[in-house]
């Protein structure tokens, strides 16, 4: 009995061992093939690269990395790929989609061996971080010809140390989705228009309905620029947020917190506002209209009764637009083709089509002036109506992310200071002063 079993195990091991050998051999073989292919193509692209200026014909193989768009937008991305390849027969585009949370690790790891994807969809903070380190192509130069098609306030998004390292791709400004039933219960017939109004209404809403009104969201550092307080000075070398106005603003937030007007877990990303809104625990949610559908996914009947309004305004009266970016790796072996592809993805036609598909906005003037974005003005659907309001505010919107490579650290310092005010009862003025010192020593 025992022996028989042992033999069986042996056999199993033997089979598995041979499979491993085969797998190794196969993948090794594939790899060598791939390698030779690559080198061949590299040679080709090099040789043709010299011809490039003469004939204007591009060639090479480029990898295009997107963030969390597959499988929903596979069709669109394949369409863009096919169209580009048709226009430039010498170029092959490979698509790769990666999860949002792992983008930075993948890019950094691949950069360590010089294998960075040629064209990358990156978030703004990360563009600034690696752009400042020389990893990305300077778009002020490489894309000078298309610069004027973008809104000026958005072109600067990928900027750090005076150079722009990415083309703005799809973008959003905020709209406001709100729950008229909750507002009615609290005695209001319209959503707030400004942050000030919003906080005033919050107390009544909490008292009458038990739901929250305005809350402090994870991007709370943006409340500074929205209220006319600069985060950094003009040349991004020192903190500028330590002002009496900022202290006053935070003191009022502390007061609201003590009154129970908002919980801290939203700012700390423990709970998503989509979930709270869908549970009717918060009366409105100011965010990009493309995210309104999340409410529909969680609680369709809440979405059904929701309405959309224009985004809340701060003292400065400006809206923040946060585009996704398209950047090209400086280390790319087919840089010319990659740059051309980046421009192609962000051109008016492709931006417009993607904007329609995903309820996002194109940062390209020509595209956003399309009648499509006028359509939602009277729509009963919160997403479509919200998109209308967001599109309206796009022309005047700016990207408020401070243009320094240390942007994540600066944001974190501000968040920490704010948490000290809320959790440890530190005086806002002191917390701001400490944060200022920390930011200054970071930026030197």
């Amino acid at each position: 009995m025992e022996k028989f079993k042992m033999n069986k195990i042996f056999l199993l091991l033997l089979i598995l061992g041979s499979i491993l050998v085969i797998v190794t051999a196969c993948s090794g073989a594939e790899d060598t093939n791939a390698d030779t292919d690559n080198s061949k193509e590299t040679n080709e692209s090099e040789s043709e690269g010299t011809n490039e200026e003469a004939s204007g014909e591009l060639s090479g193989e480029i990898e295009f990395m997107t963030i969390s768009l597959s499988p929903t937008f596979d069709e669109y991305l394949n369409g863009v790929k096919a169209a580009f390849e048709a226009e430039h027969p010498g170029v092959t585009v490979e698509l790769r989609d990666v999860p949002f949370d792992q983008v930075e690790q993948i890019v950094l790891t691949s950069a360590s061996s010089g294998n960075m994807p040629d064209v990358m969809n990156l978030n703004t903070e990360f563009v600034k971080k690696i752009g400042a380190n020389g990893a990305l192509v300077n778009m002020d130069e490489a894309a000078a010809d298309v610069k004027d098609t973008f809104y000026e306030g958005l072109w600067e998004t990928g900027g750090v140390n005076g150079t722009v390292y990415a083309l703005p791709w799809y973008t959003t400004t905020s709209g406001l989705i709100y729950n008229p039933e909750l507002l009615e219960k609290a005695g209001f017939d319209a959503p707030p228009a400004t942050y000030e109004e919003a906080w005033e209404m919050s107390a009544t809403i909490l008292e009458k309905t038990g739901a929250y009104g305005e809350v402090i969201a994870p991007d709370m550092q943006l409340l500074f620029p929205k209220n006319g307080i600069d985060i950094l000075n003009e040349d991004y070398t020192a903190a500028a947020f330590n002002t009496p106005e900022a202290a006053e603003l935070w003191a009022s937030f502390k007061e609201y917190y003590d009154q129970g007007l908002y919980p801290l877990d939203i700012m700390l990303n423990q709970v998503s506002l989509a979930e709270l809104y869908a549970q009717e625990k918060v009366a409105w949610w100011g965010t990009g209209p493309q995210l309104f559908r999340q409410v529909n996914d969680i609680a369709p009947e809440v979405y059904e009764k929701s309405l959309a309004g224009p985004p809340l305004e701060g003292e400065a009266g400006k809206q923040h637009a946060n585009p996704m970016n398209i950047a090209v790796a400086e280390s790319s072996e087919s840089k010319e083709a990659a740059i051309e592809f980046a421009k192609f993805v962000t051109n008016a036609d492709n931006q417009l089509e993607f904007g329609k598909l995903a309820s996002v906005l194109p940062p390209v003037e020509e595209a956003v002036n399309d009648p499509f974005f006028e359509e939602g003005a009277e729509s009963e659907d919160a997403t479509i109506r919200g998109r209308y309001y967001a599109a309206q505010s796009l022309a005047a919107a700016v990207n408020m992310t401070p243009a320094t490579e240390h942007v994540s650290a600066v944001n974190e310092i501000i968040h920490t200071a704010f948490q000290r005010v809320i959790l440890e009862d530190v005086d806002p003025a002191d917390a701001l002063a400490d944060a200022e010192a920390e930011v200054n020593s970071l930026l030197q």
Partner: protein
Amino acid sequence: MEQPLIDNNLQKLKEPNNNNKSKVAAQRKKFNKRKLLSGSISYIFLLLITVITIVPFLFALSTALKGENDIIFSIPPQLIPDTITLDNFITVWNTLPIPRYLLNSVILTVFGVVLPLILCSFAAFPLARMNFRGRNLVFMLVIATMMIPGEVTMIPTYLIINKLGLMGSYTGVILPGAISVMGIFLMRQGFMGIPREVEESAIIDGANVWQLFWKIMFPMVKPMLGVLAILSFMGAWNSFLWPLIILNDPNTYPITLGLYQLQGAFSSNTRLVAAGAMIALIPVIIVFVAFQRYFIEAAYSSSVKG
């Protein structure tokens, strides 16, 4: 009455050294009473732990079964949906090539389990049973590297995989995990528990070292192999970051990576995510149920031998 099968087995196993059977039979009655009592206390504890263990899963399952009009997050929590539907599962199945992902996972997991079993035993056997120069040095090195966080060695490891030309291949995913320091540690514990006489008598019987290892020592550490298999299985099945970095073709993704695509840039449908998580669990449960029998059997047989 209760579990006659196991009782009989044990009875049989005990038989050789049981020469006063009647005495035992008389006493057996006495503790049956006590057993009944402690049995019900045991069940209270068992059920309590079960509740704690299972509640989060029930929420995930109930979320996965909820239809369009059921609220996912409600207070008080709604465990049984008003409309139970399999739509979420069907949607997941239709959006993603689930069978392919599962197959990929199975391939990666089989190697992720079998290789450590063999290789860790190879390494542990001499460390536990042989005296040779350099043993302590090797063992110290092994322990030392166990403490270095993988996040730091990730980039150097990646560079090596890249140099070996293994990018995008399963070999590149599997090899770095083919031997685990923890596994060596565990198997060393197993080999150390075997009495000297076993080896000596085998050598007297004319076995060479290789035969001694495969035919005698390896089978004797079955319980540890069982533990290591289960642990490696879990690690291989759930591994996420490393395959993501090495593999670049979504068609080669294991299920953990594949399911991540349910969280898109614009949508995060909690019901689908929950359904996806449940789908990923099903094979795990099947394997564990199947394997658990082997594991326990191995454990029992070794205790009898030892």
